[in-house]
């Protein structure tokens, strides 16, 4: 039986989906925006990081700068594109469509500046490790470890710090949060910073795993969305669990059913699960107010 190796490598790829999913959920909770360009933001930043690396910057430094830059682009997106939309009716879909447009813009920008050829991106560490009979690139393992640390850090931030609690309160009830003096604008900026930063972390390692292309984020982003469906759009632990579950499910489907129907199987399973739990496993259905 080779089910263990399949699961192990599923968890390893799932960590990237989980990071993206977590970013999507943090942003959605703060501003009701499904950020379709979150992956493309990360891709753009990794292209810039590649420039820095080519200039001789150490990879570790490039990673730290990338996370900051990704976060800043995220905050700028919220400030310049999302906040001006205001509070119209049906704003959820309008904001979603704006981010689709932004994704188009970023991909075109990357294509124009760097071209469409795949460019290699160096891993943080080279070599490989054997776990449970499966050989995994050491870099992928490191990526999983860093991703887990990042998630724990996010969990600690939201669970244990005053600012994190304020952000949770603001997500629950923006109006009440404003009443007790929380600055919703600043909280929104911070959420977008955090969300896009996490996405950049995911893309940084994904780029090393394959190579840099303008559409690098497409495939993982769809998986991340699948994870978000599974966990519910409003639950951070749900998104993480969903991301990992999709990684494993994807690998199982590819190994045991058919490599050609991976998307179909993954989404089929999700739709089936959503039938049982329309809000995802941990999310809450948003109730309308009278």
């Amino acid at each position, binding site marked *: 039986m080779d089910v263990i190796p399949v699961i192990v490598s599923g968890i390893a790829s799932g960590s990237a989906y989980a990071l993206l999913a977590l970013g999507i959920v943090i942003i959605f909770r703060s501003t009701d925006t*499904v950020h379709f360009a979150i992956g493309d933001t990360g891709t753009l930043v990794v292209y810039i990081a590649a420039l820095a690396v080519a200039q001789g910057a150490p990879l570790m430094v490039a990673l730290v700068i990338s996370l900051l830059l990704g976060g800043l682009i995220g905050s700028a997106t919220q400030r310049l*594109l999302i906040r*001006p*939309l205001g509070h*119209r*009716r*049906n704003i*959820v*879909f*309008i904001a*979603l*469509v*704006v981010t*689709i*447009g*932004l*994704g*188009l*813009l970023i*991909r*075109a*920008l990357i*294509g*124009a500046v760097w071209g469409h050829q795949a460019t290699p991106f160096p891993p943080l560490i080279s070599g490989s490790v054997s776990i449970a009979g499966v050989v995994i690139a050491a870099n992928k393992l490191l990526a999983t470890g860093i991703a887990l640390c990042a998630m724990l850090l996010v969990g600690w931030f939201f669970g244990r710090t005053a600012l994190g609690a304020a952000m949770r309160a603001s997500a629950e009830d923006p109006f009440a949060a404003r009443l007790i003096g929380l600055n919703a604008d600043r909280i929104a900026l911070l959420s977008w910073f955090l969300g896009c930063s996490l996405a950049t972390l995911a893309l940084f390692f994904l780029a090393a795993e394959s190579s840099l292309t303008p559409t690098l984020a*497409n495939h993982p982003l*769809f998986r991340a*969305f*699948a994870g978000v*469906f599974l966990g519910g*759009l409003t639950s951070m632990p749900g998104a993480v669990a969903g991301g990992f579950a999709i990684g494993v499910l994807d690998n199982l489907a590819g190994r045991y059913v058919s490599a*050609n*129907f*991976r*998307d*179909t199987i993954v*989404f*089929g399973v*999700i*739709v089936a699960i*959503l*039938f049982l739990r*329309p809000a995802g496993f941990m999310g809450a*259905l*948003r*109730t*309308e107010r*009278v």
Partner: protein
Amino acid sequence: MKGDTRRRIAIVLVFVLVWVVVGRAELVGDYGKLLATTIAFNAIAVLSISTLAGATGIWSLGHTAFIALGAYLCANLAKMQIPLELIVPAVAAAAAAVGYFLGLSAGRFSILYFGLLTLAVALTSMEIIGRMIGYTGGDQGMPMPPVPSWLLQRNLNSRDALTVALALGAIVFVITDIIIKGSRGRRWRAIKSHRMASISMGLVPHQENALAFALSAAIASAAGIAGALAIGYLEPESFNLDAGVMLIVATVVGGIASFWGAVLGAAFVVGTPEVFRGLHDVSAFALGFVMVAVLLFMPRGVVPALIALLCWSRQRAPAAAQAKHAQHAQPDAADDHEQLAQRITALAAQLMPAAKSALVVENLSVSFGGLKALSDVSLQVPPGQTIGLIGPNGAGKTTLLNVLSGYVTSSSCKQLQLGQADLAAVAHYRRLRQGFGRTFQHAELFNELTIREMLMVAASVGRTQALGAAAGVLTPEQITQLILEGLDLNEVAERFPDELPFGIQKVADIGRILAIGPSLVALDEPFSGLDHSETRELRAILLGMKAAGVSILIIDHAVHEVFNIADQVVVLDFGQVIASGTPREIQRNPDVQRAYFGSVAHPTKEDAAHA
């Protein structure tokens, strides 16, 4: 009505004109023809997205799947020598069926999940196209076989593509316009504007959304047929997610739910890459940039923004001013008041059915997290009686109403019956069928429906559900007219709610309940926000309902009005019933006084002193 016909004729004329100029007169070369054909089938595709967005608020990323379905089905049916005239309806029906099924499945989720699930549909369809090589040619694609035409008695060739695209376009645009402007479209707009209020009228959002999804899937499949004939070769690339994003760009730029918007949007996404030929990234950049800019500065799209700009100076401003002044005919003499009251009373009595069954609530408790909003509340509304429910803010009145409406689920409840029906076991959109109707504190009308359209939906959909066979001989049009006249709403009949003062909106909400005709009406703060004459009018309506034998549950802060009209009054405080009885008894109850005024007065002592 007249304007609708004129618009439809204009749409057809545009298509005929393009056909004559581009197709017949040979004014443009083959390149121009191809461009026109491409714009035409893209316009149909854009219409499918914009119809869905306009009718339901859902943006679909997955409609390329239905375009692909149309194209590949058309190719395979043509292989069997089936003529185009049969292919089109067959393919449209198949796409509609698939769309309805998917829509019904996705309709269980919030519309946001619905939109995201369309993404999954697109991805899945790409994999299926890639694998069903026998029917699709797989990743290599397949050439389009010759398509026979029954009308032309020959096979269609690439020169006929323009004709087919334009003819399909004309048909699809006119049919869509008829559906969207008709009674089905009114229902969709009602649900889109206010989901809860539409549910209280008995509309079933997930079914209606599935129908809208089916329509837009059928439109998309027609675009697929036209596109397949024009391009002559089918390959999966044409139906990938990028293509779906392009359709979204076109819809956003052109503006939703608009004929010219769809055409302009299609021209934009077809034309931009032509202008920047060979510069793929520049054209993609331009598309993305224009889309974001339009969303930021012209949120409704270019065409609606232009129309608004054109009309604004001429019509909109005076119209709005006029509406502000369009108060009810103010009767100045007391006699007129009497007559108005009698007329409204008679109208309410005519439209509302007598109640036969009682509403019984027994030991109802609701908690939100740790907070108990209602605990062990019991009350009854006997048939034909009016029960007043009063209590300070936060006493749980609205929560109780929301449990009755089905928007909030009780944590525990011994009994929640309306007649024979166990209300708690019935979905919220089916409660009207048991005779339960309600009004809203803030009117909650439908922003995308005029007052007349709203009454029409209420009188057709709502009334059939509330009354069934007992709906009587009046047509929805007649009922609407009676209400418009009876409540003096004629002047504002063609206006949208947000153009009207709040008082008129509340009267229109009452009009809606008259049009529906439930046997039990729950009124959520009907008197709040009304001026003196509107209060009188409402009082007359309530008296009319009472006279007709309707059961009424009235929740309000206007204690005086409630005492005047109610047979029995129930007082809630901190989620518990603290008193119930006739208005007189309640007025003297010391607990009630304490709940309302704190421990100020000691009425019992004073009463004793006076006595």
